[in-house]
């Protein structure tokens, strides 16, 4: 026998083309499941490319200057001299949190005040409405106020706003400042004022937490790296930090890259869902092709030739799907700047990224072939004997060991893809394990559902009900694939909703009972008593009076910042940061000692000062009980011994501290106070805040309402992005559903024709079909909701440490919406079967 290894590739392509003739629309339908996933990824990749270019182009305007130096205390002496000698043009900025007061409607709110001088920003501009306000406000007693504040307090340019003791005219609305995002504006809305009014505001007092920034512009081209290299030792020595255009670019790029990786992975999940849809559809397609494959095998086609014919076909259609997906992605990209506008500090452009398009096409091609391999490999085992005896090797198809190799390839591909996004093999493996677990759990649920329906469904029910339900587990059913895809999408959305509710509930709960709901801080010693009197006039209880002393760490176990070795587990930053410390003789309700012994009074310990450290801080710095720490309190050195570690519940609206001193040490040190009170209603809170701002303009206030409002805004902004991405999974699920319905149409036609021939009315067949899809949708939605409930309960129990009570109404709405949508899609796609005479359908389909 002469051996021939020729594959006759041109003929294989010709056969793949010919064989696809009557199936092209079906094949396109299979591949439609991945179009959306590819679209999502191409959109995100394009965005990534464009934003990286935008960051490069707009890097200077992100910082607004060539160099920025930051200090957290007033600079004097030689440091000031050094700072004044840098750059050709200079600007200063002092920023701090403060209350502002809108006289027009008596509104008050904690904001970020930035007092600036000079021409900053040197690159880009303060975007304001009217446009000239960003420059003009510096020449008069005027302010520009963030858009969110203007909207919240219904303020207009020309109105006034009071900051400290000074009333400013609002010159304009601040739309955008260098490096600012919508999210940062939500957390801390900004008001710009001229620096020369800073002193008059009276806000520079003991304990005021002011950030000092110095912006420099170099008119001549300057090697910033060399400059920084020269300056760095001195900057470090004085605890000053710095930013250049290059470092700002890296920072922005890094944070965007994290966001981009997250979005890519969510898009990838949608793509994986689609791929499972593809694998499932091709499985049915190949099953239908068994007779044709057996025939060509009889005619002399080798197994691998037959395999290649269909591989070429799938690769071809995968390529088309990927190209359509890439085109769709380029289109979707146009909407992403709108979706992500609150997260990215640069103006996003939306040009076509050919790199992203190419990546998307290659990914689409590879992944469609990879997932199609699962059903395709079984094709190698189709015996020509099938021409004589159908189902000659049905069992062999299911038991092909090569499928494990394909599973391995798929897992390898997911790990590789996630590694490329996350750049960490550990996180990539974690992501892959997470995805596989989610899929396995959903698949297991699907099997459980099918088993339960089969096992427990009452046989006494009418035929129509039994038939509708039996369709869920009959051969070639789509139950698993739909439960996985629609279930995952539903779980996404429901969990997101639950987390949003949980976070808000956690905050609300923390202020329930007799817990404080308002924190007043930056209170000077002289203001304490009058403020308490004012609070009593408003019938508010003083729950806690907390003294705060600022200090630095001078020595740890005898070592200073200068003498501690670089490889020590004790971070050098612990010496440069400022500690806000309190002193008291007892623990608060939110604290408990986890190690060591609490010492409430230094006098009782014969003058030995035992401090208590927050356990997380102690752990990070590798501090042990009995270690010595010398603190510098405004020039006086205070030696202490670490006496205890405390566990602190940071989630309450109250003051918490890394370091707590005993009584009898700091009473005479320069200090300021924080007061905690409880306000019953929003109106009472507003009245009290107005009174405080008018009498004590330097005192800042945070109340529960503000915290909840800010959290709500942040969560809804993040939630919008997640919902947008989850929509890809849900829509993919629906596309898979449409594809599944159409693919299994032939079986349905045969059944429907048989039923109609036996006398079933259109109405009865419609009822069976409606039932089947309603159950599919309902089970998928219920599975997703159940998973979400379990996930949310775990999150509540272990992360948010609260009880979880599901909100049933929204869940019911989601459940019904998904179940009904699935049913209508199922019915819509089956309409052809119902409206035509049986014979006509049989002729068409034969």
């Amino acid at each position, binding site marked *: *026998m*002469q*051996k*021939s290894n*020729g594959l*006759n590739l041109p*003929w294989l392509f*010709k*056969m793949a083309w*010919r*064989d*696809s*003739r*009557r*199936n092209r629309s079906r094949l396109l339908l299979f591949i439609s499941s991945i179009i959306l996933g590819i679209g999502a990824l191409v959109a995100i990749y394009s965005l990534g490319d464009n934003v990286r270019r935008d960051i490069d182009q707009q890097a200077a305007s992100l910082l607004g200057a060539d160099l920025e130096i930051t200090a957290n205390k007033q600079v004097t002496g030689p440091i000031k001299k050094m700072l004044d000698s840098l750059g050709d043009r200079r600007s200063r900025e002092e920023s701090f949190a403060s209350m502002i007061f809108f006289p027009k409607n008596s509104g008050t709110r904690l904001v970020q005040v930035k007092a600036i001088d000079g021409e900053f920003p040197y690159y880009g501009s303060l975007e304001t409405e009217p446009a000239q306000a960003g420059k003009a406000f510096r020449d008069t007693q005027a302010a520009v106020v963030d858009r969110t504040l203007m909207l919240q307090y219904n303020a207009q340019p020309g109105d006034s706003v009071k900051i400290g003791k000074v009333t400013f005219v609002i010159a304009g609305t601040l739309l955008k400042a260098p490096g600012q995002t919508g999210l940062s504006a939500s957390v801390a809305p900004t008001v710009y004022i001229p620096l020369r009014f800073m002193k008059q505001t009276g806000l520079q007092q003991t304990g005021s937490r002011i950030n000092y920034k110095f912006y420099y512009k170099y008119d001549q081209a300057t090697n910033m790296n060399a400059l920084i290299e020269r300056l760095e030792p001195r900057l470090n020595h004085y605890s000053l930090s710095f930013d250049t255009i290059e470092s700002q670019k890296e920072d922005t790029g890094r944070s965007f890259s994290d966001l981009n990786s997250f979005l890519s992975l969510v898009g990838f999940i949608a793509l994986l869902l689609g791929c499972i849809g593809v694998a499932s559809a091709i499985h049915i397609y190949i099953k239908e092709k068994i*007779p*044709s494959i*057996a*025939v*060509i*095998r*009889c*005619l*002399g*086609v*080798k*197994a*691998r*030739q037959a395999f290649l014919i269909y591989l070429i076909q799938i690769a071809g259609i995968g390529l088309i799907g990927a190209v359509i997906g890439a085109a769709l992605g380029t289109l979707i990209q146009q909407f992403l700047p709108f979706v992500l506008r609150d997260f990215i500090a640069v103006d996003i452009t939306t040009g076509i990224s050919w790199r992203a398009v190419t990546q998307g096409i290659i990914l689409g091609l590879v992944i469609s072939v990879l997932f199609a391999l699962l059903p395709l490999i079984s094709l190698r085992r189709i*015996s*020509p*004997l099938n*021409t*004589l*005896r159908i189902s000659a090797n049905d069992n062999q198809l299911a038991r092909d060991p090569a499928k494990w190799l394909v599973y391995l390839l798929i897992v390898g591909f997911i790990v590789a893809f996630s590694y490329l996004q996350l750049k960490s093999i550990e996180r990539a493996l974690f992501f892959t394990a997470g995805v596989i677990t989610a899929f396995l759990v959903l698949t297991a649920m699907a099997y459980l559902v099918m088993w339960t329906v089969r096992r427990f469904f009452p046989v006494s029910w009418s035929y129509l009900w039994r038939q509708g339900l039996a369709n869920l587990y009959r051969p070639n059913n789509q139950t698993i694939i739909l439960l996985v895809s629609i279930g995952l999408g539903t779980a996404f959305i429901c969990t997101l909703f639950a987390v949003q509710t949980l976070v808000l509930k956690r905050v609300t709960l923390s202020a329930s009972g007799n817990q404080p709901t308002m924190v007043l801080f930056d209170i000077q010693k002289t203001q304490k008593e009058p403020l308490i009197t004012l609070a009593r006039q408003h019938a508010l209880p003083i729950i806690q009076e907390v003294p705060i002393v600022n200090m630095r760490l001078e020595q740890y176990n005898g070592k200073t910042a200068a003498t501690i070795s670089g490889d020590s587990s004790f971070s050098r930053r612990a010496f440069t940061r400022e500690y806000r410390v309190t002193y008291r003789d007892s623990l608060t309700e939110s604290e408990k000692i986890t190690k060591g012994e609490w010492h409430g009074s230094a006098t009782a310990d014969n003058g030995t000062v035992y401090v208590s450290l927050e356990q997380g801080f102690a752990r990070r710095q590798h501090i042990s009980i009995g270690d010595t720490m010398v603190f510098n309190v405004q020039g006086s050195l205070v030696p202490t011994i670490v006496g205890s570690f405390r566990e602190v519940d940071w989630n309450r609206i109250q003051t918490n501290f890394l370091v707590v001193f005993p009584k009898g040490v700091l009473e005479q040190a320069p200090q300021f106070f924080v007061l905690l009170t409880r306000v019953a209603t929003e109106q009472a809170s507003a009245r009290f805040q107005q009174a405080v701002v008018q009498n004590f303009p330097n005192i800042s206030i945070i109340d529960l309402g503000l915290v909840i409002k800010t959290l709500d805004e942040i969560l809804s902004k993040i939630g919008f992005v997640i919902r947008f991405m989850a929509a890809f999974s849900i829509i993919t699920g629906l596309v898979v559903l449409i594809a599944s319905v159409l693919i299994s149409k032939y079986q349905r036609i045969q059944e429907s024709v048989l039923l109609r021939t036996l006398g079933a009315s259109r109405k009865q067949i419609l009822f069976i079909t409606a039932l089947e899809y309603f159950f599919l949708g309902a089970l998928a939605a219920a599975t997703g909701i159940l998973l979400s409930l379990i996930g949310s309960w775990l999150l509540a129990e272990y992360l948010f440490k609260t009880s979880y009570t599901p909100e049933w109404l929204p869940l019911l709405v989601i459940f019904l919406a998904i179940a009904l949508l699935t049913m209508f899609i199922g019915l819509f796609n089956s309409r052809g079967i119902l409206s035509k005479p049986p014979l006509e359908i049989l002729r068409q389909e*034969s």
Partner: protein
Amino acid sequence: MDKILNIQQVSKTYQSAGRTLTVLHDINFSVDAGSTMSIVGPSGSGKTTLLGLCAGLDRSSEGFVELHNIRLNTLNEGQLAEVRNRYIGFIFQNFQLMPTLTALENVMVPLELRGEKKIRPIAMDLLDKVGLADRGHHYPSQLSGGEQQRVSLARAFSNKPQILFADEPTGSLDAETSERIIDLIFELNREAGTTLVMVTHDLDLAAKTQRIIRIKGGAIVSDQPTQAAIALQ
């Protein structure tokens, strides 16, 4: 006369539900090149299994099958495919045309597989011989059962096979159409000098071949020449 097919001590067993099922047992016969023969027997007697073994579609559990002096048991799947393409033609009860290919393309496939050139006129000529010259561009679903079987005939002869296996070739056709198809099979067979091995339970049809092997319960119960063979002699 040369032997085109030689079956020696062939048995076929299957494993089913943990039990060994013997479908064919100790089958021995050979077929002269250019002759015609039928395998007849009741349903489940093993005749289709025997056809599958003879045509290299399946492997015997014991014994060997030689086709054109090639021992099929020793070949791998790829080599078996090549044997089928080079020496064998098939006619099936359900026609087994590729639904996505036109009649002409269906006929061309075996030739294309061989990598032959200028095959279109050959395929057209064959379609002409079966009376379907004007239906070459039609898909199987656009043809009647008889027409589909005629295309199947044209395809079976397209690679000039040494041996033609026919599995109930008229099983899906009405009497009148069956008659025409049978005439066509024998006519083309004579013209090409091909060996014909046919599985059928139509004894009238079997009687038109030169030899009938009767099979029952997986074993040959008789192997006799027919009147047609005697007449020919």
